[in-house]
């Protein structure tokens, strides 16, 4: 556990150093994400969401940010595998002795940890501009952790595809087209879809609602299932890639 913590800190520092070398990317990223939100808000208003109704806008904002978080976590893992393979650092990760699954989970969490700051700024700025008041309860924490773990599970599954087949940009685009709108949109009939139930629970909690025990249970089961499946697929792909001698090749 201590070794993983050291790895987490090293990855956090690395992510930070890489980001501060390119500050413009960071600032423009924030601006772009803000603009997209207002674009979405505009589209939503055209299709019936009233800008004067803070409850509806707040639900849209939460969905939007959760969608961004999910996409960030899901795509970070496969993007990093691809980057590390290109720079030849994937071999060093194997040589570090942590095991690829642990390494990439920790790396994704570190990168997410670094982006959390970005998300927090964005959330408060957009919430302020949109004049939204949220209810903060302790239940948000487990909901957020479960949501994050489920996203990691999806990320690991996509990482497995990257390890074996390389070039997952099409798969990632497909996932973006499916998951992102599903997380943003509030459609109860889509709650069986990965991460959608979690986003819905999160929204309810932020608006001071009470979530039924059964929905919590379903959310937890979905998270465990997604994460276990992701780990299983990633470890199987890791083993297969080593058998085929693919590991570290672009």
């Amino acid at each position, binding site marked *: 556990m201590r070794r993983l913590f050291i790895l987490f800190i090293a990855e956090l520092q690395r992510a930070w150093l890489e980001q501060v070398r390119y500050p413009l990317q960071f600032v423009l990223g924030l601006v772009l994400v803000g603009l997209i939100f207002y674009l979405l808000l505009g589209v939503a208003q055209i299709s019936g969401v009233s800008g004067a109704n803070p409850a509806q806008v707040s639900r849209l904002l939460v969905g939007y940010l959760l969608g961004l978080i999910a996409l960030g976590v899901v795509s970070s893992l496969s993007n990093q595998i691809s980057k590390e393979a290109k720079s*030849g650092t994937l*071999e060093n990760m194997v040589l570090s002795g942590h095991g690829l699954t642990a390494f990439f989970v920790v790396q994704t969490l570190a990168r997410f940890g670094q982006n959390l700051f970005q998300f927090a700024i964005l959330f408060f700025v957009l919430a302020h501009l949109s004049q939204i008041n949220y209810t903060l309860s302790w239940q948000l924490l487990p909901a957020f952790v479960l949501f994050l773990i489920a996203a990691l599970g999806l990320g690991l599954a996509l990482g497995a595809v990257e390890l074996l087949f390389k070039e997952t940009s099409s798969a990632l685009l497909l996932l973006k087209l499916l998951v992102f709108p599903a997380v943003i949109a509030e459609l109860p009939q889509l709650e069986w879809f990965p991460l959608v139930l979690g986003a819905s629970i999160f929204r309810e909690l932020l608006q001071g609602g009470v979530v039924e025990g059964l929905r919590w249970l379903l959310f937890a089961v979905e998270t465990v299932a997604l994460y276990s499946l992701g780990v299983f697929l990633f470890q199987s792909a890791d083993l297969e890639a080593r058998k085929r001698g693919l590991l570290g090749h672009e």
Partner: protein
Amino acid sequence: MLIVDSVKKTYRSLRNVVHVLEEVSFQVQAGEVVALLGRNGSGKTTTIRTICGLVIPDAGSVRINGFRFGQQEYMAQLGALIDTNRGLFPRLSVFENLVYTSTVRGMSRRAAAERAKYLLDLLGLWEKRNAPAQTLSKGMLSKMAFANAIVHDPPFVLLDEPTLGLDVDAAEVLEEQILAMAKAGKGILLTTHQMEVAARLCTRVAILSDGKIVLDKPKQDLLQMFDLQTYRVTFKEPVSLPSLPFIHSLDETGLVLDVTLNHPGELYELMDRLRPRPLRSIEKREVELAEIFRAYTLKKEARRA
């Protein structure tokens, strides 16, 4: 001790089956520099990648100081330079790259920083410590990749063509380091196509041909063994030669013939075969590692033909 024991590896695809390693076995002791030599495609890099755990063998095992791959201590015993032009985070500085690798591999931050400074000084890269890795020249990248492989001070180091593409000075610095590490008790396995580099560095030679170790001997024994059997024949006038059952090469002028015999007794047979030609002299010659390598890999090819 690093023990590679009966390792086999075959790659199968829909169209073909390639036997890359067939029962490869050898050892590297502490303080020893073993040169793993072989032609392109002979299986050297697959052997290195198998030891690193990047490739899982179909059969056989690798142990380092008693630890098998999969045990946490296994990787702690090992440092590896797999590709001299890659393996660094391009956006991190030279110094940050080394500190990252050593902390991830278990060193404290302070020890990592000290070690990084020591290595950068040693390799003449201290001036470049703040430069992002992506801005380094090819030679500097090679030196950095070497430093990255040994930064956590492992007891065994694998070096896949460490001096490839380096200028004379840089290669010399690296060679000095390799010898110093061996003197300090590290076991080193290196692959190279530069025979003179192997000859300068190694204490043992293993030749890999078509996925098999065809020779594994201490360098001195090998040179002595061949020294007895290597002759230079000089003719008084240019000659052409019939096919000879020995490894040989006649120079362009047709005046000098270098011959490697399988055993000293063959000298008489050689004399018989050359008799009608006007000989000036026959003398024993000091053999070079490149000739031994050529002799062994050619023998293998001849047998196959």
